[in-house]
């Protein structure tokens, strides 16, 4: 019974995730697209909870639904899209694009179908993660084993900020000089 229920929940989440993702990219009203993304983020968080990853679920809500989405809305307001974009298609070759996507989808489906899961490696069994707490285990792995990757992400964000400033501030300064 429980197995069936969790399967049903997964099915619901999967369908909603795919449907909202499609709505996000096809919607011509930018605000609607952002709101559909919000729905998608919440379902993703629930998906994490069903996998016993409560820390990731919290992060998903706080960072993505909370911070990233607000930034998206800011951008939408700043570029001031009052009316929907009336551009017919951004690209003329969408039939070819759909063909390629379907081909890729079939390939991935075949790949996933043949996937034989390996025996678990390492000392992190699901029981131990549950006992120690997901956040703690994640933090330990992040700050010991993956400390270098963690630091590199920091540099990556620094470059993103630097790039944004260079591309906006620098150009404005140039305009003032002229």
């Amino acid at each position, binding site marked *: 019974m429980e197995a069936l229920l969790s399967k049903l929940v997964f099915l619901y989440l999967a369908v909603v995730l795919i449907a909202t993702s499609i709505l996000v990219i096809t919607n011509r009203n930018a605000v609607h697209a952002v709101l559909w993304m919000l729905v998608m983020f919440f379902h993703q968080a629930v998906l994490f909870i069903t996998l016993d990853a409560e820390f990731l679920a919290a992060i998903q809500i706080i960072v993505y639904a909370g911070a990233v989405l607000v930034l998206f809305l800011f951008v939408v307001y700043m570029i001031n899209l009052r009316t929907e974009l009336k551009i017919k298609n951004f690209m003329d070759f969408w039939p070819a694009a759909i063909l390629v996507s379907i081909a890729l989808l079939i390939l991935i489906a075949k*790949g996933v*179908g043949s996937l034989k899961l390996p*025996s678990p*490696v*390492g000392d992190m069994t699901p029981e131990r993660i549950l006992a120690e707490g997901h956040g703690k285990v994640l933090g330990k792995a992040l700050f010991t084993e*993956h400390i270098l990757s963690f630091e590199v992400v920091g540099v990556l964000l620094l*470059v993103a900020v*630097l790039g944004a400033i*260079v591309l906006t501030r620098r150009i404005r300064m140039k305009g003032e000089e002229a």
Partner: protein
Amino acid sequence: MWSSLPSFVAVYPEILLVVVASIMALADRWVKLKDVFAWITIATSVIALIMVFAVEGAVFGNSYAADTYGLFFKMIFLLALIMVTLVSPGYNRMVGIHFGEYYALLMFAVTGMMLMASSKDLILLFLGLELMSLSVYVLAALLYSDLRSLEGAMKYFLLGAFSSAFLLLAITFLYGLTGTTYIDVIAKKVFYPGLADNTALLLSAALFVVAFGFKVALVPFHMWSPDAYEGAPTSVTAFMAVGPKAAGFAAMGRVFIEALYNARVDWVEYLIPLALVTMFVGAILAVVQTNIKRLLAYSSITHAGYAVLGIIAASREGMAATMLYLFLYLFMTIGAFSVVTLFRQKDFLGEEITDYQGLSKTHPWVALVMLIFLFSLVGIPPTAGFIGKFFVFKAAYEAGHHLLVIGAVLASAIAAYPYLRIVMLMYMKEPEKDLAVNVTPYVFAGLIISVVGVLILGVYPEPVINFARTCCAGLIP
């Protein structure tokens, strides 16, 4: 407490670059003489180069290895940084992008490349690639009031982000199959029965080919490169043509040769058609170009096609040949782009190949230097280009890909035409206009390094190829 921290010695060169780059980005406001940043960049690169030779060892739970394979590529990246820095002051002042953040972004990009070359963990490899790409996207967009720069950078950014998704998907599949992202462990696990003929593994290898194909601009994933190369500031184009390309090959070596060596039958099958198409399409499309930056962009596509032959050979000799190729390619490509930067004036692009008409009469030395680089790009014997081609062709032939090598030779015959057309314009036509040449001491030094590199390595490549061979000894069992 402190004793439980892992040792950071192996990443000291990267840390140095990041720290200096951050300080330069901050200090730009108070430094009036912007050339200081060029001096600091060169000094830092030289120190980092010495440090790279001094440190070694695997750290961080074996996710980062300062081994000899990484060492060779780091040498390429840091030399590229030094030479691009020499090109930059004169050209960047002319186009109005001469500031500290420019050099900082170059150094961040090189840090990302160095992480890619030394990473033993696919997560770190991905992060290094993103660090490199993000910095280069910004650099390519620096001239953004010029629509060409904006368009090129936008294409580069969108397709680059797209290819990152492919890379992540490939890593995910490999993780699903092996339960790990560590390259060493993956290499052992691919042996396991039932895994090597798994469709998911083939798919993962194919996705890796697509992702790296975007980064090194293999046809049909090359669409962004001519626009991005044309639009970016020429100094950045010189960097893009060498750095990210070499880093892409470094990552290919890590993934294909080191992790997926036992599945080589499969990924070699994917790479062979790509290599053939790349060589021919690059060569044929270069023929019709009239803008020299676009021409060199197609030329760099063709050269990626040659360099991938060494990976296809899937042998120690092949990998060494690819590494040698990238090392030699550094001198001729940055050299050729340095010459292109000389003609840039405030209101004159100097990027049409007809601008080079009669150059031997007006500026004989510049014409001679350009001639050397073009001959090297064609692969005419006393220059480095010939040596590079010779070794990759030889490695692919010895690995049994005879038809592929014949195709490569045919393609390089076609590819000779666009370069020789410029030579013809420079030496056999009368000059139509008087071009001003903007030579600074920096770019002069850079050109001398490139010419010496192209000529000396063309005659005496022995030390470099031997060094490359010892460097990839640990890579292949």
